[in-house]
């Protein structure tokens, strides 16, 4: 029951985020506003306990949620046949650049443990 209550909170906050995005013409997708709202709402224990139970489950299986959209690649096979090689080069190289820059900025500025 507790994780279910957590899901109810997540959906309610997402809906509220969706309403705010549309109503106030905010540049964020609804779920992103929902996430920010959740950060505020987590101060309250009645939100925190159920959301923790649900979020831990949902986030530990996050990769599953990408499968349906990933399978969508078959719709774009003609595009892939035409540009696939170049697209892969772009995606791979830009991902490596992103990983390298992020990791180095954080790692070079790390706090060394006191000796």
């Amino acid at each position, binding site marked *: 029951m507790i994780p279910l209550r957590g*899901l109810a909170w997540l959906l309610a906050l997402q809906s509220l985020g969706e309403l705010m995005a549309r109503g106030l013409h905010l540049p964020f997708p609804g779920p992103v506003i929902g996430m920010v709202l959740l950060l505020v709402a987590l101060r309250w224990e009645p939100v925190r306990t159920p959301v923790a139970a649900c979020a831990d489950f949902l986030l530990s299986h996050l990769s599953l949620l990408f499968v*349906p959209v990933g399978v969508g690649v078959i719709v774009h096979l003609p595009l892939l046949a035409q540009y696939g090689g170049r697209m892969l080069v772009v*995606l791979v190289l830009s991902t490596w650049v992103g990983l390298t820059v992020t990791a180095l900025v954080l790692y070079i500025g790390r706090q060394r443990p006191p000796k």
Partner: protein
Amino acid sequence: MAQFVELWVYLSASPLFGLTATLVVYVLAQAAYARLGHAPWANPVLWSVLSIGAVLLATRLPYPTYFAGAQFIHFLLGPAVVALGWPLWQRRAELRQRWGRLLLAALAGGGAASATAVALGRALDLPADVVLSMAPKSVTAPVAMGVAQAIGGIPALAAVFAVITGLVGALSGKYLFDGLRIARDPAGWRARGFALGTAAHGIGAARALQVDADAGAYAGLALGLQVVLASLLIPLVFRWL
């Protein structure tokens, strides 16, 4: 045989098929991933996508028919993005202490990934809408779709690019970080995890979580930050360009 074909036609047309296939194939792929000692190349998303895609192509089942069932899983991406607030909240003390450096890393890394993708895509003469669909590729799929729509890309293509990007990060991150001589100590794990969450969103974060708890937590943090930064900044930057 005729009866089997009839049965298959009935079953494959009902939403039950897409939902069951997604879940069963993923559970099997996850089991294989565990059995293979979580080798990067055994990534469960990669193999699930490849096997389901192959079945759809072989049986000529249209993607929309599959998605009619699979959408129930896809739908959970929304609440999952909201749920990202939870790891952020859990680490709020650390976030407050290191926010400058973390924000800098998230901005620099996310910006570098997006800018490289757009510049390289243009240099290689990819069509304009394809290039625009690549700009938000470091953010988690549902947000990438929203951002792509806002800047004139193709949402469905943006989602596919995001998934491929996540897979590239999950598959190759380990070797890249080893090559950069990032240690396997707490500071190293934090940097590795944060980088995976920034440049390879949920799929990279899942990989980070698999390897180290600290890396996983920082990946979750980076993922949440990147969602906020990208959905705010990418549309802004493209409005100026």
